[in-house]
């Protein structure tokens, strides 16, 4: 097996193993309800994590997504409560704003040669601040169109629900996989993650690609905000705090290198499922402190950092051995 597939395989194996153990203790864990919940409850996190995967694959980071989600949800709630606009128009507006916001951060990162960490940190404060300026209260959304969207679900055998937002997340992952592996943009992202100088030599338009990556992340954060707004039927400026960190954790557990250049969108999907599974288990158990979620994710992150370092070390040693064998 190629070493670049190893982290993905490890993640998938851990997920299956963990699920089996959960099932052994609580047979109800293997029901369509739990599976439906895994998709619905993690929809907003999953969609944002797809954007985060692209950013991390390119060697960057985006700390603004949690705030953008909160901003979008408040923006939608305020507009729906205060104007007669149709939700679809409001959604489109929200997506345009979040995409431009991401693109602007990408432009600052590229043209001012600033570290993504600092730029997106500024973006994080900015978006959260804007959300608070719009409203400090939790604003309910009561629009008939929301009821229609929320009632769109497929009742699976066993009572589970495959909701609209759950399906949307699956579609975003699918689109993300195609974008990463079947398009020029995807190839450019991987190239950029290997090093900006090398990428430039390969003919990658670095500036354009950087801006596109952060715009994509902004777009998906905006979409995630729409999903969050559908999920809670409300907009609240204090919501989705720390979602960016959960997304980063899911990306790394999914086997993507934090240094960029290597990883899979599909891995992030499994990473999301693992996070969701841990939370479900803890609720099922009902006696463990919910902070165990954080502890287990911390342990998994450490394990994956070690795994990645190990793979890098082994593959570099193999290369040296190979070079020797060829007498170079």
């Amino acid at each position, binding site marked *: 097996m190629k070493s670049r597939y190893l982290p993905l395989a490890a993640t998938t194996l851990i997920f299956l193993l963990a699920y089996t153990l959960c099932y052994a203790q609580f047979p109800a864990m293997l029901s369509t*309800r739990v599976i439906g919940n895994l998709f619905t409850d993690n929809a907003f996190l999953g969609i944002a994590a797809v954007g985060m995967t692209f950013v991390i694959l390119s060697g960057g980071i985006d700390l603004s997504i949690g705030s953008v989600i909160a901003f979008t949800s408040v923006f939608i709630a305020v507009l729906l409560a205060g104007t007669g606009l149709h939700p679809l128009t409001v959604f489109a507006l929200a997506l345009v704003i979040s995409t431009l916001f991401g693109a602007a951060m990408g432009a600052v990162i590229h043209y001012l040669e600033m570290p993504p960490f600092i730029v997106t940190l500024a973006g994080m404060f900015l978006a959260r601040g804007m959300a608070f300026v719009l409203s400090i209260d939790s604003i309910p959304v009561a629009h008939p169109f929301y009821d229609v969207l*929320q009632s769109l679900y497929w009742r699976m055998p066993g009572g*589970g629900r495959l909701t609209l937002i759950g399906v949307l997340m699956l579609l975003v992952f699918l689109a993300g996989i195609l974008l990463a592996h079947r398009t020029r943009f995807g190839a450019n992202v991987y190239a950029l993650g290997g090093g900006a100088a090398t990428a430039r030599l390969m003919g990658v338009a670095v500036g354009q690609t950087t801006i596109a990556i952060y715009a994509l992340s902004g777009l998906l954060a905006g979409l995630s905000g729409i999903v969050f707004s559908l999920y809670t039927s409300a907009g609240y400026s204090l919501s989705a705090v720390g979602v960016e960190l959960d997304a980063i954790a899911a990306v790394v557990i999914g086997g993507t290198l934090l240094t960029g250049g290597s990883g899979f969108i599909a891995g992030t999907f499994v990473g999301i499922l693992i996070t969701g599974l841990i939370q*479900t288990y803890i609720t099922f158990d*009902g006696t463990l402190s919910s902070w165990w979620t954080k502890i287990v994710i911390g342990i998994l992150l450490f394990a994956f950092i070690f795994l990645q370092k190990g793979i890098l070390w082994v593959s570099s040693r193999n290369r040296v051995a190979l070079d020797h064998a060829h007498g170079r």
Partner: protein
Amino acid sequence: MLFKSALAGATLLASAVLGASAASALTVGFSQIGSESGWRAAETTVTRQEAEKRGVDLKFSDAQQKQENQIKALRSFIAQGVDAIFLAPVVETGWDSVLEEAKDAEIPVILLDRTVAASEDLYLTAVTSDLVHEGKVAGEWLVNNVGDKECNIVELQGTTGSSPAIARKKGFEEAIAGKANFKIVRSQTGDFTRAKGKEVMESFLKAEGGGKNICALYAHNDDMALGAIQAIKEAGLKPGEDILVVSIDAVPDIFQALAAGEANATVELTPNMAGPAFDALEAYLNNGTVPPKWIQTESKLYTQADDPQKVYEEKKNLGY
């Protein structure tokens, strides 16, 4: 390496397999907001105690102040097929769809301590205290104990604009309304904190002739009263005698002040929301008795005559 990381992930899950919960009569999921205040921690402790007392298997989930975590927990409870769900909602909005799912699965939901902005048929009942009533109980105690003599009252309000501050002020004013000898001469916010309560009381004392004109202090919570007691002592007066002290919440520390004769009365905001909730649930499941949509908890008055030291001993281990 692969094996190792797989092991790390599985350890926690495996460790609990052995301790699988025993079958019991009733399984109830409880989604708690978090543990942001002493009162909330006490509510969690009391809920656990009540569940144990009744042999109920309580599934506890701490949402860490996040609504998304509460929604997830509720969905997991539904998937697990619990018999009922207790919910202490972190915000009022956004519960419609998950409550509908619970209703579809025929799992009754009982709200604890706060309510939600959703249709009433989505939950069985809500168990909360009546904040206005709390203020009224405090005011009535004062009216009954002072009698006919002139009484100038100073008031320490809670955080400006917060619902407990508004409601507790209103209730107190209702109780003294029509009694000409009672007058609130000063009223300011002490932000529900001990430090601010002390500071504001100091300024009250200075403004009212060193405290000689003040007959009673009404504080919207015990913490502010405790701070004010300190200020009264420093001004050379006797709290509880020279100035009567009445407040709300009944946290453990106020009982020490009651025992020392430095406070006179406190109205309890009971952390036991689960007791009435379990009672209503059992009646509903066993006999089909549908409870009213709102169950008001008792706002019990404690005075120096109620053996405060004993109550302190009972309360101090609840996690306040």
